[in-house]
């Protein structure tokens, strides 16, 4: 699958990046393509393009704080998860997406 994710957290520092790494690792381990945008204290990094949105099978968004420019993903299959879940339970999230996009 082609997956996209956007991570953000209240302070915009540690959890944003830990979640990004966690979900990226889990997706790749299960053989999927993934691009992760981080919305942290450093601003928006690794920004997702409209073409990538068009091609994506599913989008993972952290729900700790509102994701900026969320309307980009309208019409896509969206999975809302906590940043903590991305860090500690990445493989479970990816499995759930596999089940729900069949």
């Amino acid at each position, binding site marked *: 699958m082609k997956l996209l994710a956007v991570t953000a957290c209240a302070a915009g520092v540690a959890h944003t*990046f*830990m979640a990004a790494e966690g979900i990226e690792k889990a997706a790749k381990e299960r053989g999927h393509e993934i691009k992760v945008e981080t919305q*942290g204290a450093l601003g928006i990094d690794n920004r997702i393009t409209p073409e990538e949105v068009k091609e994506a099978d599913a989008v993972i968004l952290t729900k700790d704080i509102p994701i900026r420019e969320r309307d980009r993903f309208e019409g896509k299959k969206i999975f809302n998860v906590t940043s*903590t879940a991305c860090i500690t339970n990445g493989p479970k999230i990816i499995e759930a997406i596999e089940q729900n996009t069949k």
Partner: protein
Amino acid sequence: MLINKDLISINVDLKNKDEVIAHSAQLMFNAGKLNDLEGYRKAVYEREAEISTNLGDGIAMPHARTSFVNEPGLVFMRLKEEIPWEGGDQPIRLVFGIAAPETGGDIHLKILAKLARQLIYDDFKQKLFTIDNEDDLLALIEEATGGLE
């Protein structure tokens, strides 16, 4: 240099968060990273009061960006015993202290971001908890924050 052996302190006997923050600030000051020890220490408390830097898994990252800092510094401490640290449900044993100058961009945030990404890897965490040789720890941390000076 962001970090050197003098900024690494393992099996250090500190009993609470206050002692940890004071020790981290003292190491930074001794290494010439700070121009005002007390000023930096207060700035760390102010940042900690906004949102705790307890990251879970036994790790905290107390930090501050302030004019009391001369140049970016990174401290690594492994405590002899776990201590409580509000803002997380787990006690703390590993501490990364970060000092960043007011000017000079977002260097401390980049350090934090790079370290945070590494901290999800059990292998990296395991090494931080277990390596007893300071040279090896220094090499590990330099690799994890690589390219940032």
